[in-house]
């Protein structure tokens, strides 16, 4: 679903991503783990056509990132870290607009929005302003934005940051369901290691713009003689992933 070789991105003279290789198979839930500033979001924005890579090659959802960004956009969903809706916007209207930008006619868009809200336990929020929703509800609305066109591949940037533990576990359930029921491939970033452990089939650890370790949680723990992913992280990077350890 994703094949990336030697992807780099520099901002002025600073190399934010320094030659990343990524392979993700269909139906996998892959966690992209690293501290703030490691290059997670930069990589994600490149893979979703929002940021042009400085060098490298990438095929995303069967389309070349450089030659056919529009083809990539049609097949992927992307949920950015900072949210998708202004506080004074009506949730349903925003979702219908988004669905129509993916090519649905108005009636189909409405229908799709209603069903999707139900699937995400958000029935009835369509008439509400985004600013009035709880953190967990708002995050699920953001995720709905990325699912309207039934993408094969969903990118989630820090989907659970700022959520309380209960909303987080709830969100994990929704992500698992997407894979089980729709066969969706999910690529998500997180700085919670126990989230990566609980939710992901496979983990890529990124630090200072490079992938420093990858494997299933069990493989990583075994290879580093570690009981938890926190210990793995410390072992491969030489420092702790602070937020992950605290959570």
């Amino acid at each position, binding site marked *: 679903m994703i094949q990336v070789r030697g992807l780099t991105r520099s901002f002025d003279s600073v190399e934010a991503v320094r030659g990343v290789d990524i392979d993700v198979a269909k139906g996998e839930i892959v966690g992209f783990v690293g501290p703030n500033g490691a290059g997670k979001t930069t990589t994600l924005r490149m893979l979703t056509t929002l*940021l042009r890579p400085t060098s490298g090659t990438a095929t995303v959802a069967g389309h070349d990132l450089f030659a056919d960004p529009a083809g990539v956009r049609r097949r992927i969903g992307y949920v950015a870290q900072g949210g998708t809706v202004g506080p004074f916007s009506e949730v349903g209207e925003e979702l219908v607009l988004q669905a129509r*930008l993916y090519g*649905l006619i108005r009636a189909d868009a409405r229908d799709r929005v209603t069903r999707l809200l139900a699937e995400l336990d958000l029935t009835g929020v369509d008439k509400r302003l985004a600013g009035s929703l709880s953190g967990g509800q708002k995050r699920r609305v953001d995720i709905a934005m990325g699912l309207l066109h039934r993408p094969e591949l969903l990118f989630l940037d820090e989907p659970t940051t700022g959520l309380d533990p209960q909303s987080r576990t709830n969100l994990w359930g929704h992500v698992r369901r997407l894979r089980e029921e729709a066969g969706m491939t999910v690529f998500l970033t997180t700085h919670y290691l126990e989230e990566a452990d609980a939710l992901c089939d496979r983990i890529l650890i990124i630090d200072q713009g490079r992938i420093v370790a990858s494997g299933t949680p069990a493989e990583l723990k075994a290879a580093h003689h570690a009981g938890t992913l926190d210990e793995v992280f410390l072992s491969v990077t030489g420092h702790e992933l602070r937020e992950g350890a605290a959570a």
Partner: protein
Amino acid sequence: MTALAALTGYYLRASFKSKFAVVFGAVQPVFYLVIFGPLFSRSGVGSWDTLVPGLLIQLGLMSSGLVGFGIVFDQRFGVLERLRVTPARRSTLLFGRVLKDSLVLLIQAMVIIALGYALGLHARLTGVLLGLLLLTVLSVGMAALSYAAALTIRQELFAPLMSTLVIPLMLLSGALLPMSLAPAWLDVVSRFTPFRYAVEALRALFAGSYASPTVLWGVLVTLVFVGVGFTIGTKVFQRENT
């Protein structure tokens, strides 16, 4: 096409939710019309047929020039990024907004013209309709540039910078007092601003001389302005990190 219709419809609904904002956009030219107009029409400089076209250009500058303010919030809340990841073309994302802005401007312009007629405007309807067309085209360029500026300069600077910039541009266009009164140096400076040509073309259209060189120049300059404005706007929308 679905995308453009969806976007324009969405933005129009959003605009008309706040009817106050639509009305408020036209309030300044209305003041000029009602309070300055009676003085102007008795000053011997020109009639209502001179003033109203000028006020329409003022409206275009004020109303379309400041539309970029709205996109600042879209950028802050991630709305822009969300739209940019869909297959809709980036130029469509811009055009959907701009089309809404032009329609809002058109409504505001019609209010001013109607008021103008009530106060003493004599222009023929054909000239007025052609003038509205020219104004709409001009506003497309203005709005596109406004969005480009809003996405380029620092957020907190946009509103003060644009509202300050609009004043000299408006005065230099001869919108309030025709540039035929200007001393040579001011006349020369004025010729470097695109809106002067639009004002003069609009006055010519209101006066009924549709095929005059003034109209031709106004149309040409406006078309170039729109071309440049929309190209810059699309470039900025396509740019990374917006």
